[in-house]
Structures are given as structure tokens and as C-alpha cells.
């Protein structure tokens, strides 16, 4: 059953990422086509051209994103922006079906984190109690004083089976997704192995309490429900309560006001801070007497962003606080810890998206500073190199690591094993 769901989830995971890649390819083609079409329609007025023309940056999925879709279905992986105010564009969502988002993705990390523990429970819950209930246990104890070893060996067999299935699935993953055997692969494999060991430790612990089969099954399923569903969900509830995000709505308002109010103010109010931000642009003659000029217009757009910097920082701080909260509690709950670790490695978590947004900001500035001179001097569109611009791909700079995740899971496992050994000694 594990293999079936494993293969199914691999298939869905790969399809999901293949879709994203196909979209990125298409977007690259569309950018070229749209740029030419825009030049065709608006080529006479360079300011107007850049009002309409979009530049795209793509967060190409890491090969492992098919394994753990993470937040890639919620956060846009392709951001297309014009040269206008960035903060009003960068938060635009993709086209999603919220019901699909609610029900979640069918990917391999789901199988490993949610389903494997259930199989482990199913295999091991009646290891000892079955012997007891069928009367074999008393026979066994009478025959040998190494009864503990017998149980231990039975246990090891099950461990071996589960681990080989897991490794087999990982092996198939490498082949199916064409993944290189590198640091990321070893990190993820280690995480999964530690996680499965944790669950074996939990099962073994419950068995060592020497209760009936029914009790074991119920207790183990209750533990599963608790740490796979109830506790993460409750923690999330407290998180949203403790750290709501009104900053986001305030940010949109700030950016909008910061830009629009400038229309009714003297041009000085816009140009002074604009030139303070970019002193190198002072060299271009500013048409003060004209009621409207593209120079003034683009400066106003930038003012919208500049005035929203504080609220943007506020959003970032809030998100960082949330992350700290999650990380603290993840230390105690291997389910959350493993999912966070895997998402981190696969580059499909929120932090990866935030880094992507920063990259978009940098790219936006680069484009603006490159094309500002042509716009301010009102040059002809053909004198710029806009036709050479194509879709850019973003690649993350940092190498994530999962040492903390591995550490916390192993500590918990060791504690459990210790208690189990103690329980068995008592018997």
C-alpha cells in the first residue's frame, strides 16, 4: 500500500512541478512576444512603453520541489512586473483553486510524514501483546530468559522492512525526477530515516507498557492524530492569534497613498526625495514647467515604494517572529520539524519565497536604473536594448541545512528509547 501511494504521490508531485516549469518556459516566450507587441503599439512614446511592458523573474523549481511541494502552490513562482511601483505588484497572487490549496498536495513528503508512521504503527502495535494474548508469551518466558531479545529481533525485522521500502522509494525518486545524489539528497534521507526511527521508538515505548492490543492500537493512533494533526493545527491557531498581519493591508494602503497623493502636490515634494535616493539621476534635465512629464511620473511611482519601506519592514519583522515561533515549537514535534526541514531543503517554503521577493526587488531596481536615462531624455525606443531583455531565472544563494532538525528529532528518540529500555527492565 505504501508503494502504491508512494508512486501515486511521486506522479502527482512531478506533474505539479512539470506544470510550473512549462509555465516558466511559456512565460519566457510570452515576454518576448509581448515586448515586441508593446513596442508596436506604444513605441512612439518611451514612457508609455515602459508603463505597459513587463519584465519577468522566475523562481524555477528546485529538482526536489516535486518531492515536497511545500508552499509553491500558494506563493507565486513567476513574478512579472512593470517599471511602476513595485510594492503594488509584488504581492499579486497566482491563479489558484483555493479548494485544492485547502485539501493539500499529494506529494511524497506527505506519504513519508503522514502515512509511513501509520504503517509502522500497524506493523508493530501487537508485537508483544499478541504473544501475550495468544498465550505464547508465557511459554516463551518459561523457555528462555532472553525473551526480550526475541521481541527485539522481531522488532528489527519490521524496522528493516520499513527502512528498505523507504530507501526504495527514495531510489525511485532519484530516477524518476532525475535528481543528483548530493548534499540535499543526503540531508533529506537522513531526516526521513531519523523521523521513521522516532516513530519506531514511539511504538516500542507504547508496547513496553505491556497493555492489550486494543489499547496499543488506540494509544498509537491517538498519538498519531495528536502530533500529526491536532497539535500542529492548534499551534497554528495560536500563531495566527498572536501574530496577525494587519501590516500587509496597511502596507498596500501606504504604497497607494504614497504614490497617488503626489499628483496633487508640487513637483518638488516628489523630486527632492527622489534625487536623494538616486543622486546620479540629477544630471538629467527635469522639465519643471510641464504639467506632466514621464520623469515626474516615474519618480512619483518610486515615492510610493519609498514611503512604504517602513511598512514593508514591519511585514518582514512579523513574518520573522512567526518563523521563530514555529521553529521553537517544531523542536518538540518531529512531524513539524521534518516537514519544515524537507521544505527548506526543497526550496519550497516561505523563506525561499521571501528571498525570491528580495531578488525581484533588486532586479526591479536594476531595470529601472538602466532605463531611466532613456526615458528621462525621451529617447527613441530603438536606441534602448529592451529587445534583448528576456525572462530571468532566480537561483537561491544560500545552502540550507537541517542540523537543528536532525538534532531535535534524535534527542526525542533517544529519550523514548531510554524510557522503553527502563520499562522492559522492570518486567
Amino acid at each position, binding site marked *: 500500500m505504501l508503494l502504491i501511494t508512494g508512486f501515486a504521490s511521486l506522479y*502527482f508531485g512531478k506533474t505539479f512541478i512539470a506544470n510550473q516549469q512549462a509555465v516558466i518556459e511559456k512565460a519566457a516566450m510570452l515576454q518576448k512576444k509581448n515586448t515586441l507587441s508593446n513596442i508596436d503599439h506604444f513605441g512612439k512614446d518611451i514612457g508609455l512603453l515602459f508603463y505597459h511592458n513587463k519584465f519577468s523573474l522566475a523562481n524555477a523549481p528546485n529538482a526536489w520541489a516535486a518531492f515536497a511541494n511545500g*508552499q509553491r502552490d500558494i506563493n*507565486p513562482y513567476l513574478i512579472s512586473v512593470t517599471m511602476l511601483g513595485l510594492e503594488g505588484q509584488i504581492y499579486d*497572487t497566482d491563479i489558484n483553486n483555493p479548494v485544492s*490549496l485547502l485539501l493539500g498536495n499529494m506529494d511524497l513528503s506527505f506519504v513519508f510524514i503522514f502515512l509511513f508512521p501509520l504503517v509502522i504503527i500497524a506493523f508493530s502495535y501487537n508485537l508483544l501483546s499478541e504473544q501475550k494474548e495468544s498465550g505464547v508469551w508465557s511459554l516463551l518466558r518459561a523457555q528462555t530468559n532472553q525473551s526480550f531479545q526475541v521481541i527485539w529481533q522481531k522488532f528489527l525485522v519490521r524496522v528493516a522492512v520499513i527502512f528498505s521500502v523507504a530507501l526504495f522509494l527514495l531510489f525511485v525518486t532519484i530516477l524518476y525526477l532525475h535528481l543528483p545524489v548530493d548534499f540535499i539528497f543526503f540531508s533529506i534521507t537522513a531526516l526521513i530515516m531519523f523521523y521513521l526511527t522516532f516513530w519506531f521508538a514511539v511504538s516500542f515505548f507504547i508496547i513496553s507498557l505491556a497493555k492489550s492490543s486494543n489499547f496499543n492500537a488506540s494509544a498509537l*493512533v491517538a498519538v498519531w*492524530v495528536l502530533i500529526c494533526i491536532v497539535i500542529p493545527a492548534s499551534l497554528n*491557531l495560536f500563531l495566527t*492569534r498572536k501574530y496577525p498581519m494587519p501590516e500587509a493591508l496597511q502596507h498596500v494602503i501606504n504604497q497607494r497613498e504614497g504614490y497617488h497623493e503626489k499628483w496633487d502636490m508640487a513637483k518638488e515634494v516628489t523630486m527632492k526625495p527622489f534625487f536623494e535616493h538616486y543622486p546620479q539621476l540629477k544630471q538629467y534635465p527635469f522639465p519643471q514647467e510641464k*504639467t506632466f512629464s514621464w520623469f515626474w511620473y516615474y519618480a512619483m511611482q518610486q515615492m510610493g515604494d519609498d514611503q512604504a519601506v517602513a511598512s514593508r519592514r514591519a511585514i518582514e519583522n512579523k513574518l520573522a517572529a512567526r518563523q521563530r515561533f514555529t521553529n521553537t515549537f517544531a523542536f518538540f514535534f518531529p512531524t513539524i520539524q521534518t516537514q519544515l526541514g524537507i521544505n527548506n531543503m526543497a526550496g519550497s517554503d516561505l523563506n525561499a519565497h521571501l528571498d525570491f521577493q528580495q531578488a525581484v526587488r533588486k532586479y526591479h531596481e536594476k531595470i529601472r536604473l538602466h532605463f531611466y536615462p532613456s526615458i528621462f531624455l525621451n529617447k527613441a525606443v530603438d536606441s534602448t536594448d529592451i529587445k534583448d531583455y528576456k525572462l530571468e531565472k532566480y537561483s537561491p544563494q544560500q545552502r540550507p541545512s537541517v542540523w537543528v532538525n536532525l538534532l531535535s528529532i534524535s534527542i526525542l528518540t533517544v529519550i523514548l528509547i531510554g524510557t522503553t529500555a527502563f520499562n522492559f527492565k522492570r518486567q
Partner: protein
Amino acid sequence: MPNRISTIAKQTFKTALNNRATLALTLLLGLSLGLATYVGWQNFKTQNNQRLHYKELVRAQWLAKPDKHPHRMAHYGYLAFREKHELSFFDFGIESFAGVSIFLEAHKQNTVNFSEAGFSNGMLRFGEISVAMVLQLLVPLLIFFLGYNSISAERESGTLKILLCQNVSWKQLLWGKTLGIIGVCLSIFIPLMLLTILLWASLSHWQISADASLRLMVLVFSYAIYFFIVSAVTVLVSAFARSSKSALTTLLACWIFFMVIMPRITQAIGVKIYPSPSKVAFADAIATDIHKQGDSHNPDDPHYAAIKDSLLKTYGVTDVKKLPFNYGGYIMAEGEKITSKIYSNHQKELNKIFEKQNSITKVAGFINPYLSLKHISMAITAADFDTFIDFQNQAEAYRYQLAQKMNKLQIDKISNIAPGEEEKPLAISKANWAEQPDFNYQFGKLSSVITNELLALSALTCWLLATVMLLQYTTRWIKTI
């Protein structure tokens, strides 16, 4: 004869609560439900107050804008916020996964941004503790633990034979056990619903509408039916299973498959069969259709030549500058009409695709009562997909109306003679801004909810009938020993 059923029911009820483990579980569940209700209610207040605060701010800022050209106001646009229904504290539905604010401006349609999910780092995907989640997901687990050995334990300890010899019929036994288990559920469910009603009333500031009351009634009813179905299934499995242990394993396996695995699979299948376009493809399709019609910002655009000629003829002038109204505004109004229509058509098709994607999960409700109840619950608490689409439609209608109002103001009140490059821009008085009403979202009525969820409702009813029939008529196949 009904006496026997109630006796058995009462006895089942008492034994269940006497068992320490199940009592602990029941209390724990009750407590977590209370907690979920309270925190959900608080969350609702915070979130909704936030949105209302910004709604007022946006309105105040709109009215405070000084005299200017109405087209500037059209580009300034409006910010609309998606409000929550009072009942949504009960079932979050897609709330956290759908955006909260949308920027409405002329010429351009934007997305609804800032969903809670966009701020989450993955913990949200484990699930959300809402009252609905506990009732839909965890109470069945409780029922399974309560009832897995209701018949099989009697069989294994030999008391079953004694009962049947004492002229207790199988039907009475099955019904009695089922009702006893439901009794335990109701002992949590009823106080909870009373608490819910209290909190809901306080959220609506004690102004209870008939629509919301009806919604609440249908909600309570649906959940009660669901509990009956689950209890009946438990007792039946216990009756037909070979041993208590196999009954338990079967029930747990069912729980895992139907409630954890199946929803994801059916939705993944739906998405695969009916793929939706990406944003770039969607925008490109719209842009292609629009470019066929021309650019309204440019009054000399050839596509609008026909309109221009007919206007010149009607007013008997030779130049558009001599028309008695603002020609640029007129053309923009035409352009807005055309582009909005194109966009709405594409949006409708997109929503149809999403509905088809969701249909697989909906149809699966016929084999999985959990999915049916989920849909009904979300729909009644206005936290479902249809409500979200409704919000998008209302927002788009408002956007269109705002753009056309500004265009009308331009046509009527702005001079047709454009000012020179260095002259002051034309403007109208700020008193005009108040003529544009605020965006007020209206929730749908219960009748539309029922029509939308007919499939889920009929699935749940089918399950109800099926379980009743099974309880009544399958007794001959149950082993006594």
C-alpha cells in the same frame, strides 16, 4: 418494545462513560472543542475588525481626495476587503487560503491578495483547529473508539447469546447500541451548539437575521445526521467483524483512508483531469482578445474610428474637439465596457474549470460522507469556494461601476479642449467623490447555498437511508457466536 431499545441505549451510554479511557477521551474532545470555539471566535473578531478598520480608512481617504481630474480617481481606485460571515468562526473552510484584499482600478483587473496561507511557513498545511474540523474529523474517531466493541465484545464474552435468548431482537440491539453511542456524542455536541449559538449571536451584535438562523438549523441537522451515520457504521462493523480487534483495525483503517488520504487524492485527480491556465496564459488570452478591439487610452486609435465617425455625424461637427462633451472620456467608457466584458467571460470560464476540478471531490461524497458534510458545512458558514467567487464577482461589478462613474464625470464635467503642456490640469470638485458609494459586500441567501450544494446534501441523505436500511435489514447475516 421501544423500551428495550432505550434500555440498551442507556446501558451503552453508561458503560461508555464508565470506561476511564473513553471518558477521558470524551472530556478531552469536549475541552478542545470549547477551546477551538473560543479561539475561533476571537480570531474572527480580530480579523474582521481589521478588515472593517481598513474599509473605513479607504473610504475616508477616498472622500478626502482634493479636486482633480476624475480619471486620476479612476486610477486611484478602491481597495475592497473580503468580509467574513459570522458563522465562519465555526468552519474556516477556504478562509485561510483565499485572499483578503483586492485593488480595484480602471482598465485593469487584479487578484485578491494576502491570504493567511501566504504568510504561513507550512504549519497551516497540517490542518486548522476549528469546531468543524473537530466535529468532522475527531468525533468520528471518538465514536469508533466508543463503539468498535459494542457488539463484538458481547459476542466474545458470551453475553450476546444471553441477550438474544431473552427475546431481544437484533434490530433492537443494533438500534439501541447506535443510539447509546450517539447519546455520548450529543452530550458534547449539544452544549457546544448552545455555546456556538451564543457566540454567533454576540458576533452579529445580537441582531439575528432569519437567514443566519436557518443556516444554523441546517448546520445542526447535518452534523446530527453525520453522527448518526458514523455511529451506525461503527455498530454494523462491530456486528459483522470476526473479533473486536479486527473491528477496531477496520474502523481505524477506514478513518485514515476516508478522512486523511481520499480528499487529497480526489482533488489531485480533479486538478489533473481539468488543468487550469497559469496566470501568464490567462492574461495573455485576455490581452489578445483586447488588442483585437484596440486601445481606449488613445482617442485616435483606428478601431474606434467607426464610433468617431458616427458621433461626428450625429453632432454635425468636423472635429472631435468640437463635440459638446469630453470625447476622450466617451471613448474610455466604450473601452471599459468592452474590456470588462472580455475579462468577465474569461473569468467565468476559469471558474468553471475550478468547479470541474472540485466536482470530483464532490461526487466522491457519495462514497465518503465526510466529504459531503465538509462541503455542506463550508457552504453554510459562507467559507466555501462559491462564496469566494461571489465576492470576486461583486468586486468586479463595483470596479466596473466605479470606472464608468468616473468616465461619466469626465464626459459631463471635463472640457473637451485639452489644456496645453504647461497649463494646469482640468479638475472637478471633490464633492463629486461622494457620489461613488462604498463597497459593501452582500452575503448570499441560504436558498442559493442549498441549490449549490444539492449534490452533497443528497449524498448525505443517501448515506442516512443506506445506514437505516442496513440496521433494519441485514441482521440475518450477523453471526451470533
